[in-house]
């Protein structure tokens, strides 16, 4: 079985949690780039020794670092994502931060995508055209909720073995889309009403397109974005959202207000996938039985922005 390393991006640097072969014992190393804001550290599945890291340092402009030796040494890339120079009648935009990194398809070695703030999607080579895909998604915060775009998707993911199956955790619920359909179905309505279907991340089982996990958060009135009722839980569906099951064994039963950001839930693709999430309170929780039970494997880290798994 491959060994698992969790790469943790935090507000104050990057950390690595390396597991033994059983994933019972975890060794914390770091921080790397102490004091830098590390938004995302992602392994290249096409070249597993390579990783990319999206970083911002204080008030300096954003940048991306690359490692070719599993994270031992890092080199800044030659040209981080940047908008084109604006013409006289154009809005002049500048990338403030790169917050999301995704490797391209396995048939496209070397291709990467980067998401930025202000909103931008970059490739490491020439891009392609894009169109809105928001039919069926609620946008009750907008004056006209029927608009073609302006929605608030927190996390959109497609299944690697069924790329026409997409899931979305949105500001306004959990959705599924099966292309060539263009209308999303709100599968989150099957969650318990007292819990709701608001959250940041969504994670798919690596081999089962009908299985997904979400981390519900309180989206009432002023949007605390913490565990509903102070009781953290992960919810699982194994039938594409037709029903959901609460998975909280080992998590605090009360008085625990976790916030799990959209990039802070991941799985490790092992035969029995491990699941992991990091909180803004600096804790990492792990399940090596696909959500059956959880335990805390790291504490007292800085505010966690992202958790990803690398396999070697």
């Amino acid at each position, binding site marked *: 079985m491959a060994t698992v390393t969790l790469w943790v991006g935090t507000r104050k640097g990057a950390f690595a949690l390396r597991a033994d072969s059983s994933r019972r014992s975890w060794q914390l190393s770091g921080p790397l780039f102490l004091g830098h804001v590390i938004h995302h550290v992602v392994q290249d599945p096409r070249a597993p020794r390579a990783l990319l890291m999206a970083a911002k340092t204080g*008030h*300096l402009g954003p940048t991306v670092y690359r490692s070719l030796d599993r994270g031992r040494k890092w080199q800044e890339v030659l040209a981080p994502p940047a908008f084109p120079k604006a013409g006289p009648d154009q809005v*002049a935009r500048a990338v403030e931060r790169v917050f999301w990194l995704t490797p391209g398809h396995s048939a496209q070695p070397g291709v990467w995508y980067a998401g930025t703030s202000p909103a931008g999607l970059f490739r490491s080579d020439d891009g392609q055209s894009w169109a809105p895909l928001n039919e069926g998604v609620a946008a009750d915060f907008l004056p006209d909720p029927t608009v073609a775009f302006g929605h608030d998707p927190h996390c959109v993911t497609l299944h690697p073995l069924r790329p026409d199956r997409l899931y979305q955790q949105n500001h306004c619920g959990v959705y599924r889309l099966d292309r060539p359909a263009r209308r999303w179905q709100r599968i989150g309505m099957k969650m318990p009403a007292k819990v709701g279907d608001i959250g940041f991340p969504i994670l798919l089982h690596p081999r089962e397109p009908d299985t997904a996990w979400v981390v519900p958060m309180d989206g009432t009135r002023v949007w605390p974005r913490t565990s509903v009722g102070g009781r953290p839980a992960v919810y699982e569906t194994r039938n594409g959202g037709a029903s959901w099951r609460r998975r909280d064994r080992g998590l605090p039963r009360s008085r625990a207000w976790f916030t799990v950001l959209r990039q802070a839930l991941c799985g490790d693709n092992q035969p029995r996938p491990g699941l992991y999430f990091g909180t803004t309170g600096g804790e990492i929780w792990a399940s090596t039985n696909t959500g059956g039970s959880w335990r805390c494997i790291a504490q007292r880290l800085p505010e966690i922005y992202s958790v990803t798994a690398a396999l070697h």
Partner: protein
Amino acid sequence: MACTVHVASPLRDYTHGAARVQAEGNTLAQVLGDLDRRYPGMRFRMIDEQLRIRPHIRIFVAAQEALTLERPVLPKDSVHLLCALSGG
């Protein structure tokens, strides 16, 4: 003839720890371009893709704040690259 550039601490990873370096140019844009040739990537951390000085970054030439990159630089001038210290 090169001018002396004083480097704020967040940028010293580029200058291998040096707090003062030399750079050539007749304008601030040229000086920063020369710095970027010597220390690749350094300029983009201070100057965005629209060629604006980034918020919370200040550049002084001969003790006067430079508001644009066209600011002339004389050989005897000192250039100070400053970053705001705010954070938390």
